């Protein structure tokens, strides 16, 4: 077995391992929520609503810290998956959809961990980030898996590194932001209706940090991701100019990148417009994430454009 093949094989093993570790992290985040729920039920509450005695909270907080540690481990493994793939193929490991989706998941989780370490209240968001990311990685492994290999001629450019790395970082930031905006919508419904809502909204709502924290976290991730995504589009245009003969040609991928850019620009405007702050802005952010996914999946797999080599064959 050649060095490249063994590196690629190791990378595949680590991918499976990452999914396992992320599953454990997901369970730990779920356990934290379950314990905090029981703890708050048990806690002694004074007439003014303040918690007098809360023994359960500290154990749930310990589980939360374990969850963060496990998620960090899984993220390091996911980083190693990409690193080994890059070493095996001797190129940047962002040459097909499998690698791109893996990188987006990596950046998304890093974004969440960054937020959770800076603002511990946001740790309860963990379940809702780790669960879709873990399931997403399973689907990526099942349906988008591509052998590590060389790139077609058009992709052999230094701009690949610049363009695709920044796309992944922007997309990853948007991913975490979009998830947090969904949670914001759940939480604001919970806050508005109070105890009137029952079922899932109420249960999830009381686990979550307050809607203002969520709104700020979502905004922060877009503020981080949007300039990077803008740069990625510009870098893509510079590259297209030397690879395809024009910097912009309304190729399906370009068109959807344009749409995504407009939607995120609308999100930033909405957050500064009276009557659009909060709920409406959060919906726009969620729409932006839908557009990003549409651009990744539909445009690569269904339409045929110049970006088609980013597909799975």
């Amino acid at each position, binding site marked *: 077995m050649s060095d490249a093949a063994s590196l690629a094989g190791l990378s595949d093993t680590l991918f499976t391992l990452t999914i396992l570790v992320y599953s454990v992290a997901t369970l730990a985040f779920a356990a934290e929520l379950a314990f905090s729920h029981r703890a708050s039920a048990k806690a002694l509450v004074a007439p003014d609503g303040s918690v007098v005695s809360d023994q359960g909270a500290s154990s749930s907080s310990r589980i939360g810290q374990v969850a963060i540690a496990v998620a960090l481990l899984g993220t390091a493994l996911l980083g190693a998956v990409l690193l080994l793939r890059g070493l095996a193929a001797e190129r940047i490991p962002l040459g097909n959809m499998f690698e791109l989706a893996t990188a987006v998941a990596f950046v998304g989780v890093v974004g969440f961990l960054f937020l959770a370490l800076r603002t511990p209240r946001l740790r309860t968001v963990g379940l809702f980030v780790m669960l879709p990311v873990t399931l997403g990685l399973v689907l990526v492994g099942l349906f988008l898996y591509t052998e590590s290999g060389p790139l077609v001629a058009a992709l*052999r450019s230094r701009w690949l590194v610049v363009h695709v790395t920044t796309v992944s970082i922007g997309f990853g930031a948007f991913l975490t932001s979009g998830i947090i905006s969904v949670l914001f919508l759940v939480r604001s419904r919970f806050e508005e209706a109070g105890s009137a809502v029952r079922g899932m909204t109420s249960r999830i709502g009381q686990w979550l940090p307050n809607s203002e924290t969520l709104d700020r976290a979502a905004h922060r991730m877009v503020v981080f991701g949007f300039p990077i995504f803008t740069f990625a589009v510009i870098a893509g245009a510079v590259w297209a100019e030397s690879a395809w003969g024009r910097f912009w040609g309304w190729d399906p991928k370009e068109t959807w990148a344009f749409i995504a850019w407009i939607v995120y620009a609308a999100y930033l405007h909405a957050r500064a417009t009276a009557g659009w702050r909060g709920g409406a802005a959060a919906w726009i952010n969620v729409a932006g994430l839908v557009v990003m996914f549409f651009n990744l999946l539909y445009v690569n797999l269904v339409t045929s454009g110049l970006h088609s080599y980013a597909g799975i064959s």
Partner: protein
Amino acid sequence: MRTALMLLFLLALAAVPGSLLPQRPLSQTAVARYFAENPELAPFLDRLGLFDVFASPWFAAVYLLLFASLIGCLVPRTWGHIQSMRTEPPRAPSRLSRLPRHATVRTELGADEALDVAEEELRVARYRVVRKDGALSAERGLLKETGNIVFHLALLALLISLAIGKLWGYEGSVLVQEGQGFCNTFQQYDTYSAGPLIDGADLIPLCVDLDDFRARYEPNLTPSSFTGDITYSRAVGGPEQQTTIGINSPLRVDGARLYVTGRGFAPIFSVTLPDGTELTDLSAPFLPTDPSTMLSEGVLKLPDLGAGRDQLAVQGVFLPTAQDVGGGLLTSVDPRPLDPAVAIVVYAGSLGLDSGIPQNVFTLDQDRIERGQLERVGSGNLRPDESLELPDGTSITFTGFREFAAMQLHRDPGQGAVLISSLAMLGGLLATLLVRRRRMFVRPGDKVLEIGGLAQGGSVDPAEFEQIVVRIRTAVADAAGRQKENPAHV
């Protein structure tokens, strides 16, 4: 802003059909296929301009409205920003402890001396500082609004640069076989498009010959590079220069760029007529239908075989590495020309090339075959130097192949301005997203300095506030120390 938001949504929505429906500038064939598959719907959609969305009047209407609303917003905003740059920071509020951030610094210095020290520190931290009624008011972060205005102005500049490119730009595409060439005139291109303000005389002088073309492959047959060695001259009869161009490395001359956008094979035939006349080196580019095996289709049309003779057409497929799959059927198993062959069908009759109706050079007119104007006179699979004998004694020999490159010349005079506008947009965006406008106030009390801070839309970053407080505290203590050591100098 509400209008701008609505128009942004409208713009995003308007772009959607541009990716879901086939677009003329991207693929005429895809549009034709859509017309064939949806004969009722297609003409209706066509009337709405949905097959060329990004050049349609309604798409232009949306973005022009957006830019009109942008200008309407930008003018008063720029004016207001200039005003606020000229205005001093406001008077310090009476109770600094009510501000989002607040700290006190003990000091032995007198009120004026302490304020002097604090003012110096704030200036070093790049605040604009004024002293009003015995207190300091300092402000920083006007760059945020500057960035915002720059971003939106750059957006306008981007639109204008794009318009310049559309009005004065042009592009032409041509298939060039090894050993052949072309000059930069509209007549010599297979297809071209040009902006409304450009005519043939404006084209830059450039002639290009393709000397050699090579495709390289990885062991797993992933194409690794396509390169063409070219000789070019920038004036008719001018000095010739040689270079190599390929994917990701165009030739750039006089603001124009020459690209290799594709490649393929052109099989070469020779024809021996029954009277012994031999015509050699007849070739036509065949278009690859499967890039992984380079199986290519095309037709060689031979209209001039002599007076009174039928015209001939050699239609078929070129297989770079042919493999017999049984029953005389050939397929290609490798994109490299390791074992080339052609499978051809020969038609004789009238090609109708002088009928005035433009013909596709890669296919035969199926109608003429059905109407009997072209008659099938022979078919066969040929390896190099094998011949096909027609009933009338004409012999067609497959003698070899040449590679051809699909070349595209593009000139967009707005391109540099597009890049600069985009980078200015990015710079403005970063400034507006990352900078916060914030104010600091310092008021002396009884042996203390009260410091308060606030920022637009919330509180000053705690780390930044803390840093300023520490700097003021240290500086005040240092000044007090110096005063004690050397009181005479105060």
